[in-house]
């Protein structure tokens, strides 16, 4: 991996984030509104419930960021004709997307903090976190795991101009299947195996274990075990994304399909 390219891509994403106000929607507005809707729906706002709503709103914001910045940016590249330039340069497309995804991770942390402050101030919600250090570490891991799913989605955006449909279809299922909105045990039985191969689902369980004293994780393995599985799955996603990205980039360069909009 070319770290210089990753750093440059990270910096460029930061600049574009501040220059293009569209990013405010997935980063700030949507998570706040969804957190507010979730909190309004609960009849009581106990510690666990508020944490659940914050996690739900937070993951929603993170996933929105991932979709927008890792995937839709490629759509814009294609539309603006800059995907050609990226593919023609010696820098690997994978490095460019990784840089963008790392920026999303950073913004995701900020987003979660803002949702927390919002819940605390607007709903006067009582929120205590049992192990704040572990919570922040696992939150970062969970964010990175979402970004790694974004890398997989990015493959589709390189391959086809129609991939934005895929992301709009899969937006809500990821919120639900990650268990961030309601615990996985509340979901239909058929969906639980899908959750088990989603890294963020393990990350969210680890987050709950770090925040709620005595919390029994759905999958077992405890807080550390869940966090480790999250990391393991994330590595698998990154390896798959790296492998297929090479193949797909080679294919689109040979066929010239990346210029088609």
């Amino acid at each position, binding site marked *: 991996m070319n770290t210089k390219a990753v750093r440059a891509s990270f910096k460029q994403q930061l600049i574009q984030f501040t220059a293009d*106000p569209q990013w*405010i*929607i997935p980063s700030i507005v949507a998570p706040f*509104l*969804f957190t*507010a809707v979730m909190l309004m729906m*609960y009849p009581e706002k106990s510690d666990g419930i508020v944490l659940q709503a914050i996690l739900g709103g937070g993951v929603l914001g993170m996933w929105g960021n991932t979709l927008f910045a890792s995937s839709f940016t490629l759509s814009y590249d294609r539309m603006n004709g800059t995907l050609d330039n990226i593919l023609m340069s010696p820098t690997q497309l994978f490095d460019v997307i990784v840089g963008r995804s790392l920026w999303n991770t950073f913004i995701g942390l900020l987003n979660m903090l803002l949702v927390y402050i919002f819940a605390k101030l607007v709903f006067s919600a009582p929120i205590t976190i049992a192990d704040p250090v572990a919570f922040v570490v696992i939150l970062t891991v969970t964010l990175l795991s979402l970004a790694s799913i974004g890398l997989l989605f990015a493959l589709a955006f390189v391959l086809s101009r129609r991939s934005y449909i895929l992301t709009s279809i899969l937006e809500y299922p990821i919120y*639900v299947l990650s268990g961030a909105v309601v*615990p996985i045990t509340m979901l239909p039985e058929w969906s639980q195996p899908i959750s088990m191969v989603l890294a963020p689902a393990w990350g969210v369980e680890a987050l709950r274990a770090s925040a709620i004293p005595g919390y029994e994780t759905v999958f077992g393995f405890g807080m550390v075990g869940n966090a480790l599985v999250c990391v393991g799955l994330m590595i698998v996603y990154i390896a798959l994304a790296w492998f297929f990205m090479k193949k797909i980039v080679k294919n689109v360069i040979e066929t010239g399909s990346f210029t088609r909009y």
Partner: protein
Amino acid sequence: MGCIGVVISSAVTYTRNKFQMVPLWLWLLQIVCTSFFSMFFFVILADYVSNPEVTVRYVVIGNVVQSMAATTLYAVSDLPGTEKHVGTLSPLMQTPANLFCVFLGMSILNIVAGLISSTLSLGYAQFVFGIDLTMANFLSVAVIVLLTVFSLTGFGMMIGSVGLRLRTSSIIANIVSYIGLLICGVNFPLSYLPEWVQAVASAFPLTYGVDAMRGAVDGANILDIGGDLLTMTILGLVYFIISLVMFRMFEKLARNNGSYEMF
């Protein structure tokens, strides 16, 4: 060519272009899946929160109407911003065609999408989520769907006109389509909100659409929900008139300072 001719021509061209970019089956798949998964999301949540006032039935009916906002309102408001983004607003403004009529024509496919989405959502309500619709007055339901989509289109045109002046209209379009979830009684009763928010909600056509739909699925006829329907129709007309004025105003401003090229 008069406005009606421009609307028809614009609708045909936009539809052809759309299906050149995205095949019909994929466009339909997107509507089928997004309307289902967004409803599924709130059903799961409603089931989990165990709030006697926020039942699965309550959120399902709310989301049937919300599905029109997520498709029609968002897409219509985003049209001028998208044209600006892809650089075609400038050539459009150089034609003698009235911009309002051009964008109204483009909206027609998105109106159809809203109608399909709400019909499908009603199907999910009954066949997937087990909502009993045997008492429903389907004439009332059909009138509500048509009037809601009409008023949301007027509202969307008003929001979209801002795209002629500002850099993009998609931010406002996004906020408006999301905010309906929070303030229009889609997922929880309006009474949960502070009074000033309820006052804001009364300016949103979706609020009346949701309220009327709850009555219609319980068997209310058109006269029973006449108040909601009338208010929604008046709001829709008012928004269409405002959007016409705003299109003219922002078009003039954009021509004077060249902001239609600004992205």
